[in-house]
């Protein structure tokens, strides 16, 4: 019987990076708690075998697996039904969920059904004297709260990309295929269609990210940022106003309700530094801000700043980078 259970799902076809981030967290928690760990693996079809291998390769020694045709992209209610069946058998004391599209809905609902303690959107988990502690951003990233989890069972959701993927640690798992009857007609929600946006520019993995904000004034300014990003092998992102206004795809949005980035270098252009954005960008190791307003809050978190018009500064940067790279 494993006390810590990771919700690993392959609803989108493959086991996501965030499932492995949870495995890393579970390994660390288990070292402090000694409860044993397992994974609940949800999905459908041939890729489940592949996902099983990946989990074993990262040290998971017990896997409860549900294969069901309804366990596909975004099907929260089917996933919830499958997890309830697994947890009736496994009775975990600690459940880890990634706060992704499905997990954001799953974690509170599981906690409610299990009468469990709930922590959402954790960015760090630890163990002190046999008790789990969690840290999370509050007030748009302006403050960090430390929470102590005093009850079990507990459901903890972890912000995707907040934790590293653990080193491989090959293991052989006991695998239990759990049969789950899911009545499609009884599910309160159903995903009718999945609309994928243009292939992600690798924003979350890029070592250099250039972000544009309201100060870009419209979609055209982003062309300049794309040109600079291409020269630097970087990716382009945006704060909320350009995404809301439709200047850029919503998948480019960096912030509390967008993506969390942790590049070596983040160049924020025309971004005032609203807390909502900073929450997603504060993991950057070096931040450069370019803004016409030297009083903009973004400069309070930037290491290097240029107070000026991006329409002059960015073309100058493009020219100098081209010189530098001999292009």
């Amino acid at each position, binding site marked *: 019987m494993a006390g810590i259970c990771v919700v690993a799902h392959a609803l989108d076809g493959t086991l996501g990076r965030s499932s492995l981030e949870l495995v890393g967290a579970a390994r660390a928690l288990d070292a402090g708690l000694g409860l044993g760990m397992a994974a609940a693996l949800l999905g459908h079809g041939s890729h489940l075998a592949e996902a099983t291998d990946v989990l074993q390769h990262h040290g998971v020694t017990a896997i409860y697996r549900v294969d069901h045709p309804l366990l596909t992209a975004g099907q929260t209610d089917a996933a919830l039904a499958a997890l309830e069946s697994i947890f009736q058998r496994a009775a975990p004391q600690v459940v880890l969920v990634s706060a992704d599209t499905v997990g954001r809905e799953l974690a509170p609902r599981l906690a409610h059904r299990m009468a469990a303690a709930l*922590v959402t959107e954790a960015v760090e988990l630890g163990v002190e004297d046999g008790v789990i502690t969690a840290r999370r951003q509050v007030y748009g990233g302006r403050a960090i709260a430390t929470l102590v989890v005093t009850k079990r069972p507990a459901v903890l959701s972890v912000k995707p990309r907040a934790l590293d993927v653990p080193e491989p640690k090959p293991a052989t798992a006991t695998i239990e295929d759990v049969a789950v009857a899911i009545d499609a007609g009884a599910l309160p929600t159903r995903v009718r269609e999945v609309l994928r946006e243009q292939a992600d520019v690798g924003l979350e993995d890029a070592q250099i990210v250039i972000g544009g904000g309201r100060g870009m004034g419209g979609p055209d300014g982003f062309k300049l940022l794309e040109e600079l990003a291409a020269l630097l092998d970087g990716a382009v992102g945006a704060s909320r106003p350009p995404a809301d206004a439709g200047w850029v795809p919503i998948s480019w949005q960096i912030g509390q309700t967008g993506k969390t980035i942790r590049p070596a270098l983040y160049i924020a252009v025309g971004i005032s530094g609203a807390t909502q954005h900073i929450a997603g960008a504060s993991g950057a190791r070096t931040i450069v801000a370019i803004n016409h307003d030297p009083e903009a809050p973004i400069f309070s978190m930037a290491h290097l700043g240029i107070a000026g018009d991006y329409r002059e500064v960015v073309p100058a940067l493009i020219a100098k980078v081209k010189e530098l790279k001999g292009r």
Partner: protein
Amino acid sequence: MDIIVCLKQVVDPELPVRDFAIDPSTKRQVRDGRPLVISTYDENALEVALQLKDAGGARVTALTLGPQSALGDAVRLALAMGADEAVVVDDPRGPDLLGIEKVGILAAAVRRVGRFDLVLCGCESADWVERAVPPLLAEAIGAACVTFATRVEAADGGLLVRRMADDGFHQVEARLPAVVAIASDEGNRPRLPKVKDIVAAKRKPVQTWPVGDLGVPSVGEGALGVEVREVVVPQRTARCEFVEGEPAEQASALLRRLQDLKLL
């Protein structure tokens, strides 16, 4: 359709840094004297409700939980934007309660409002950002749940909801009753009330219910199972170094600094 929109009043999230402080006794943000606003996405949720009302007719009730004495303009703004009535659950601790603590109160208030097909919330509060209340509320009142939705339309006796996903969007069919949490997009930017709406809002009904009247036992710390140990404001160690000069000089100097830092 009967729609309840949950609105939370928070300290303006764009408050200047110097006015932001944590009260060590409550482990929450100091609210006294700070401007209060409707939490960012809650206004988008209200806009979605009003669009459903414009499209097919709906009765929209604004519901808020907080100290009645410090209500500010949230309720009046909601009524001026077009909500038909408002309910204030008067609870001095309201804004500081964690999701699991407050969901029982919200569920009781929703039941007391009585008629509801759809409950709309913002996808997260600007202060504690748990993103937990909408799914918890859905469980508590036995409703369907969709979060991070940007568009909602009535379809086939239920809803068709556009949900933001990690790599695009999902079109989700949901049964009623449902709790839907709203994220912003260009289609749900909150409307600005006109002067005549602001005047008319003064005649709209506002009910105040003391939280004690709802008969919800408070969740003890043991049952909650989560204790807030501390809330700290991280010290920013970065001191911004401004690169001066004409744009070409600034560009050269910046790139040199980035090369020194081995970032290029």
